[in-house]
């Protein structure tokens, strides 16, 4: 599989990023470590969803991309419970791409990720701008794509 770089992401791109069956056993195992004695298992599953999404994205495309982590996460919204036994899908939308001014070998890609349930209802959205490495050949003499640097 080709290694994905910053240049491979274009605003407006939408991609499905795999699906995962959320089992009671995995929610209980996560809760035992980080969320002991939750009142409701579906709320625990929602709190677990950032980690689930991270794993799904790693398996789907981050694992073969020049991924360099993210300085943070703009926002996470938990919109609906995630029920044990439910199969959820991850979806990515590229919102914007921006070259780093200080590091010519790095660019930021702003994504909206969604987890959706079997009835296509979003259960969680997450907006984040991770860093990806740039292709060396594409950088020579190029100006940054966007005006501002956060």
């Amino acid at each position, binding site marked *: 599989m080709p290694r994905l770089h910053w240049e491979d992401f274009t605003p407006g791109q939408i991609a499905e990023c795999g699906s995962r069956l959320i089992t009671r056993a995995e929610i209980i195992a996560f809760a035992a*470590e*980080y*969320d*002991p*004695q939750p*009142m409701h298992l579906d*709320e625990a599953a*929602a*709190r677990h969803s*950032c*980690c*689930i999404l*991270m*794993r799904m994205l*790693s398996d789907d495309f*981050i*694992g073969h991309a020049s*991924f*360099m*982590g*993210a*300085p*943070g*996460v*703009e*926002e*996470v*919204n*938990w919109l609906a419970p995630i029920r044990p036994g439910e199969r959820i899908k991850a979806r990515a939308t590229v919102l914007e791409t921006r070259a780093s001014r200080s590091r010519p070998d790095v660019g930021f890609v702003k994504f909206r990720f969604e987890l959706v349930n079997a009835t296509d209802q979003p259960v969680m959205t997450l907006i984040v701008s991770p860093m990806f490495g740039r292709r060396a050949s594409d950088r020579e003499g190029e100006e940054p794509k966007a005006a501002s640097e956060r």
Partner: protein
Amino acid sequence: MKFFEDIGVGEISDIGRHTFTAEDIKAFATRFDPQPFHLDEALAARSQFGRLCASGWHTACVWMRLLIDFHRREDEGRRARGEAVAQLGPSPGFRDLKWLKPVYVGDTISYATEVVETRPLSSRPDWGMISVRNTGVNQHGEPVMSFISSVLVECREPEARRP
């Protein structure tokens, strides 16, 4: 948990600390965030982080565990004093999460929360919404993580019945 009416903006709670071991960092990353710089010392040395460091989600999950344990200790104290304990409701989410510095093997992170907003809910008079800024600081006094989360907290008295 305190009741919504008893929570004031500016209240700060030290909720606990955690030391991250290499074993701990790799076990979390293997399950949820399998990036080379969270899994392998040699690969981490060649990454932008320079050394093995914890997944940012790991740093955040430890915050959640410490917060739950903190609330439980506080509630046990309230029950022992014969005081009523408020229920915590669901959280709509969080925002402005910043991973300010890497958390390396052996780092001890101290976590705190500060109430930044309290808001009654007209749609749900039995509950109020609070927003808190959550922070983690390492043993050198450097902030490593910060974010603002919101959660529903039970009211002592529904708004309609308040004087």
